[in-house]
């Protein structure tokens, strides 16, 4: 030790403290080893004695090294201290090896205190080289002031973590705490296993550094407790021990320890291991978070299906800058678009409904009741129907909405003015028509249920359709778009095709008879009863009772034979009105109208509405031909021609 008197000698107090710190654990090693040696008698104890003697020899060698460097008469510098630590490693290792051999050897179970005392030897040996760095506080304080420690420079951008250090040695705890805090971590300590578990239960940690050899609850027991608790299981645990022995390391890893560190710590290795563990935990946490957020997107999709999705629910997921974030953003965007579209649609329907209500109120200037029935809401009719509302009044009678008390469903009831039914022959033919119409069953045709007479009032019951008529639609909206018109026309052509193929001519196709239900399905009503109106019209002077003849073909006005093509003419007028907002001819009186209708050619649709395609316009004009043979010949053909336009 010739260099010990070099200029940077440590102060005597610091050396004395260091000497004490090193000699005390050796005192323990020697003391317990000697006691155990005294107990190790008998032939079977030879191996135990050999290990204890090896322990004692190593301890005495270590004592000699300490005295040589830190002997009272000499001074010592930092370099000397560092070299001493290096020199102490081999004897310290031999103490550890011998003690470990004693722990796993046959003597281990011999006596109750044997294992405990060997553990004390190990624990003391661990304290012999506290940190691999000059630990004594006075020396360290001076070193901190003078120059940076010989530790590796702290890399920037390291993870900051909350770390729990569990060690029964105060000095170890302190060294680890200082070292880790210098790396920017938040460090808390526990002196024993029980305290460690209390701390872990109280607050979350990112990492646990766990000493293996501790009194009472040792590191293995604490590790098992951590890994057996679901809330703690994912916290990485690095075991720290002076034991170099493979079974011990294996046992730690098997119990779920993340890593294993030997005392004394190499500061660079310590940091590397800690950072690796924290990085692994971060990745695991990230993965867990990712899966959690994937589940949230799936839940959101389910919520959209059931209509429970709340806008912005995925905001934090959408904040991610990866694929999942993009998915969440796209998803949220789609849902908001969908919602906006639904809102607009709902608004439009609401507006339309309001307009229709207004139109209905305006048209409530009904004439005096002429049906002879004169029923009011709540009346019981024909001992079977409860009148719910008046739907409309027309030339032939009144239409009510009523509940069929027998079948428990809503129906429409049309009462007929008695003068239409005074002729017995006429009534019979009318009943034939009804019988025929009842056979019609199609989604585009309002079903006729029954014909009856009660208290002198004749009536028809029909399927009740909640909806609006094309008349109401035209009155509120004016002309319709080409696509809406096509939708109406196509369905109208279909219903006529079905009726015509069953031998039923409608004879009174007009917007009032065309109902649109809330789904946009067209329902044609009054099949079979217009024969009555036609007859009535001859009885009551042309057109005066049944109102406008605007939809009637010339042959019908002339009381000539009508056929399927007559319905097609009427359909042409309806389509013309949908596209232009007007019927082809206007007249101030029915007579002047009829005159025009018979003699004039209507203005082409295209002239009144340039947005309509020439083909569509031409088709409508063909339907309006005065001669039936010049028109489209069948409803089915009309349907096909319309579909070609769509």
């Amino acid at each position, binding site marked *: 030790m010739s260099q010990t008197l070099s200029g940077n000698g440590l102060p005597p107090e610091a050396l004395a403290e260091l000497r004490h710190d090193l*000699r005390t654990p050796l005192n323990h090693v020697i*003391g317990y080893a000697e006691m155990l040696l005294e107990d190790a008698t008998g032939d079977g104890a030879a191996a135990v004695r050999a290990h204890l003697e090896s322990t004692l020899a190593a301890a005495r060698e270590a004592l000699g090294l300490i005295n040589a460097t830190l002997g*009272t008469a000499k001074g010592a510098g930092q370099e000397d201290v560092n070299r001493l630590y290096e020199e102490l490693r081999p004897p310290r290792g031999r103490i550890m090896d011998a003690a470990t051999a004693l722990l796993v050897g046959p003597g281990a179970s011999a006596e109750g205190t044997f294992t405990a005392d060997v553990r004390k030897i190990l624990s003391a040996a661990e304290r012999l080289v506290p940190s691999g760095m000059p630990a004594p506080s006075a020396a360290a304080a001076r070193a901190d002031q003078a120059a940076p420690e010989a530790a590796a420079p702290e890399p920037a951008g390291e993870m900051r973590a909350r770390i729990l250090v569990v060690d029964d040695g105060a000095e170890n705890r302190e060294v680890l705490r200082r070292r880790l805090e210098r790396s920017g971590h938040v460090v808390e300590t526990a002196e024993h296993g029980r305290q460690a578990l209390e701390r872990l239960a109280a607050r979350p940690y990112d990492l646990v550094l766990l000493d293996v050899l501790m009194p009472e609850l040792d590191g293995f027991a604490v590790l098992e407790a951590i890994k057996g608790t679901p809330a703690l299981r994912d916290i990485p645990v690095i075991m720290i021990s002076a034991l170099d022995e493979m079974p011990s390391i294996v046992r730690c890893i098997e119990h779920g320890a993340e890593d294993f560190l030997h005392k004394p710590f190499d500061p660079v290795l310590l940091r590397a291991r800690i950072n690796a563990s924290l990085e692994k935990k971060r990745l695991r946490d990230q993965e867990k978070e990712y899966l959690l957020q994937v589940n949230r997107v799936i839940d959101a999709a389910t919520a959209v299906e059931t209509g429970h999705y709340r806008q912005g629910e995925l905001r934090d997921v959408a904040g991610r800058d990866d694929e999942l974030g993009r998915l969440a953003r796209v998803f949220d965007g789609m849902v908001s678009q969908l919602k906006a579209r639904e809102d607009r649609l709902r608004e439009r329907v609401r507006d339309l409904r309001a307009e229709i209500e207004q139109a209905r109120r305006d048209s409530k200037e009904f004439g005096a009741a002429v049906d002879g029935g004169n029923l009011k809401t709540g009346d019981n009719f024909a001992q079977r129907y409860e009148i719910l509302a008046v739907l409309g009044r027309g030339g032939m009678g009144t239409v009510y909405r009523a509940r069929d008390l027998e079948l428990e469903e809503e129906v429409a009831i049309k009462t007929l003015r008695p003068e239409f039914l005074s002729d017995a022959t006429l009534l019979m033919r009318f009943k034939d028509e009804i019988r025929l119409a009842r056979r019609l069953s199609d989604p585009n045709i309002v079903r006729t249920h029954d014909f009856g007479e009660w208290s002198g009032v004749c009536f028809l019951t029909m399927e009740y359709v909640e909806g609006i008529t094309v008349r109401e639609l035209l009155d509120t909206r004016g002309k319709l778009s080409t696509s809406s018109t096509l939708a109406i026309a196509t369905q109208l052509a279909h219903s006529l095709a079905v009726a015509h193929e069953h031998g039923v001519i409608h004879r009174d196709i007009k917007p009032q008879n065309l109902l649109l239900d809330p789904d946009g399905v067209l329902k044609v009503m009054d099949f079979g009863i217009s024969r009555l109106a036609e007859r009535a019209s001859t009885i009551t002077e042309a057109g005066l009772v049944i109102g406008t003849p605007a939809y009637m073909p010339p042959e019908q006005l002339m009381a000539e034979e009508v056929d399927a093509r007559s319905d097609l003419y009427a359909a042409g007028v309806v389509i013309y009105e949908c596209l232009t907002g007007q019927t082809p001819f206007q007249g101030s009186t029915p007579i002047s109208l009829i005159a025009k209708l018979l003699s004039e050619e209507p203005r082409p649709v295209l002239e009144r509405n340039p947005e309509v395609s020439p083909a569509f316009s031409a088709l409508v004009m063909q339907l309006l031909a005065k001669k039936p043979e010049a028109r489209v010949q069948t409803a089915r053909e009309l349907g096909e021609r319309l579909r070609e336009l769509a």
Partner: protein
Amino acid sequence: MTKILLVEDNEMNRDMLSRRLQRKGYEVAMAVDGRQGVEMARQGGYDLILMDMSLPEIDGWEATRQLRAVPETKAVPIIGLTAHAMAGDREKALEAGCNDYDTKPVELPRLLSKIEALLGGGA
């Protein structure tokens, strides 16, 4: 049976030394700091006191001075123990009133010979 009062704050030292002395046939009582050491010693009945010099509350130097200051403990032999084998520690210990002085780590045969010398030839 010879009764020794061991005043030592370090648990492992206390455990080890007391057990070793018991093995040698002494009855050992223990105090964990200087104050407790003085209180127990004043109650009497001890043939010898082993006093660690670095103790919490009242250190070994002060505890020794207090024991020497009262008649009932004035004559009880005290062996001072310290890990600081600094030059002058021995003189300092004797000055404070210790009858003898030893350094840690304890070499049991040497300590035992000192104890026996002070007790006048054997337990």
